């Protein structure tokens, strides 16, 4: 019995600063979406391959990583491995040589559209594709934007990350224009991350964010609290939902996952 028709969504997770919780967001979102009945592909576009750690996967050679997908002569066989013994969550792992590929893409025809072309010509069967992007805005992130149907931006409530997000929003608009993306991939949400209610600056900035988000016309999602359990979970290569199923922070991803799964059903 075929289920209700669903449409794939491709979500790029972008941040213009390191260590603000991109991979944490990617992994936990993936797991929550899986719980909601979606199949998910996680693609690690970060040469630092943090996704390997979070998914408890041994690192792979370039030919079994996303590098293979981006090479000129890709044969259509996506290198995917299941995460956490869950066949419905699959990972296309990263590799340090991604940064070299990125240089190569600059001079390649349709270089900015390579990932989009791959996803179009060799579609993945998953309901949701999540792109974990590097912290530096460049060719790889441009590829992610061109391939995405929507973007998510984690924002740590500290000045470095906040400034990075301001630049990022402008950059995304400019790049979408340059690449003539029609429709432009919308920023589906700002996700305050690593929130520590004991810090005055976090509390103040969290208060100011709704106004900023409203002016940008971007939805503001509930914050994700900081917890050492996230670090413990990733050290064990597990998402928090699996490592500490009863942890309160697990709920922080619910609204976001719910919205994304709705997009899958609606086909947008």
């Amino acid at each position, binding site marked *: 019995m075929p289920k209700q028709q669903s449409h794939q969504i491709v979500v790029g997770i972008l941040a213009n600063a390191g260590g603000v919780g991109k991979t944490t967001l990617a992994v936990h979102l993936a797991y929550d979406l899986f719980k909601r009945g979606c199949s998910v592909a996680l693609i690690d576009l970060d040469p630092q391959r943090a996704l390997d750690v979070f998914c408890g996967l041994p690192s792979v050679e370039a030919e079994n990583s996303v590098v293979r997908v981006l090479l000129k002569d890709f044969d259509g066989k996506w290198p995917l491995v299941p995460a956490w013994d869950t066949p419905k969550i699959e990972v296309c792992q990263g590799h340090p040589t991604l940064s070299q590929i990125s240089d190569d893409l600059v001079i390649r025809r349709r270089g900015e559209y390579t990932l989009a072309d791959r996803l179009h010509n060799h579609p993945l069967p998953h309901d949701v594709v999540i792109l974990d992007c590097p912290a530096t805005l460049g060719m790889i992130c441009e590829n992610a934007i061109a391939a995405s149907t929507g973007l998510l931006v984690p924002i740590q409530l500290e*000045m470095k990350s*906040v*400034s990075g997000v*301001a*630049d990022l*929003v*402008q950059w995304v*608009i*400019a790049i*979408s*224009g340059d690449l003539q993306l*029609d*429709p*432009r991939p919308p920023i589906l949400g700002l996700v305050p991350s690593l929130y520590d209610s004991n810090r*005055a*600056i976090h509390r*103040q*900035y969290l208060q*100011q*964010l709704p*106004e*900023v988000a409203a*002016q*940008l*016309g971007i939805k503001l999602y509930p914050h994700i609290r900081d917890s050492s359990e996230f670090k413990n979970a990733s050290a064990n290569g597990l998402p928090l939902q699996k490592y500490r199923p009863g942890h309160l922070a697990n709920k922080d991803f619910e609204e976001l996952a719910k919205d994304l799964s709705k997009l899958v059903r609606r*086909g947008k």
Partner: protein
Amino acid sequence: MARIPAISQRFTGAYQATEQAQRIAELQAEVEQLRAAQSPDLEAQLEVLREQLKAQSGELAVEVELIYPNPHQPRQTITHESIQTIARSLEKDGQITPLIVIPQGERYLLWDGQRRWEAAKSLGWKSLQAVTAPMPKDLHRKALLTFIHHEDLNPLDKAEAIVKEVSDSTGITADEIPTVLSTVLRRLERGQQINQLTSLIAVTPEDQQKGLQQLDISETETCLLLSLLDLGLNPASVKANLLSMLALPLDLKKAIREQGLKGAHALALASLSAKNLKIGERQATKERLAATQEVIEQDLTVAKTRELVTQIKTRYLNPKPVESKEITTAARGLEKLSPDLMKATDQEQLVELRHILQQKLAEIDAILAG
């Protein structure tokens, strides 16, 4: 406790960019809506036509690849999003309305259904249902109506197309049209009836006819004016802006067609004629060609072009002697050459100076004598 700087001001650039992008998206949507709203009659007419054709010959499946788009498609702005919407509906409900195509040999000219066709292509469909129509007799007129108010069309092509259409619909020959039009307009101008004529552009054909009857014009002239009004054109501006294009010399017509010279520039350059410059036809053409190239290469504005034309005309018509700074300076320099100075100078240099002076003297004598 020290105050922490607020974050909102960091976002000024992002706010602006967001607003701009939003505005652009709104404008695009607006354009598309206007295009659709512009032709409600057309949509209704197409519906009737589609039904008639279906009854006549039935529907057939046409290979998507054999269809080629109508270059005169009135809907110029088609966004990707609207095609996606249609693609989704095609996918969900299948094709409900057949396309209208015109068989052209083995291929089909798409008359109606551009977005369905594009959507089908994006879905990878091999064929679409269509009804066929014969090539309309007035394809030229329909194409013309589509393009006539398009400012990008070059004025020469526009003028020729209008003359052709008016000639087809009235029987007045193409050669006569400019003369008939100028004559009637001049008469109306003298009788101060031009405004009365202009006010007829926006009224119904019946009122146009009635309005023309009240003017002092012949039957041929009425036909001509009606035909222009019917195309939504102002006869006075047709004469001023378009018919003058037809009278342009060949070299300027060629520059419009091949080098993208603009109409207003061409009109300015056209006054560099043999008659105006009081020189031979050949020399006039040469001057015009050189000026045209200058206008195109330096991308001169209309004002600058007119300036250039005036300069050239002045050169030919009243070559007024002008006081030359160079000559004043040279004369002063020569005066400064005192005998003492010359005595002290190397002879070879003096010989050379004498040579130059002699040559210049000869030239001056020749000019003064001529």
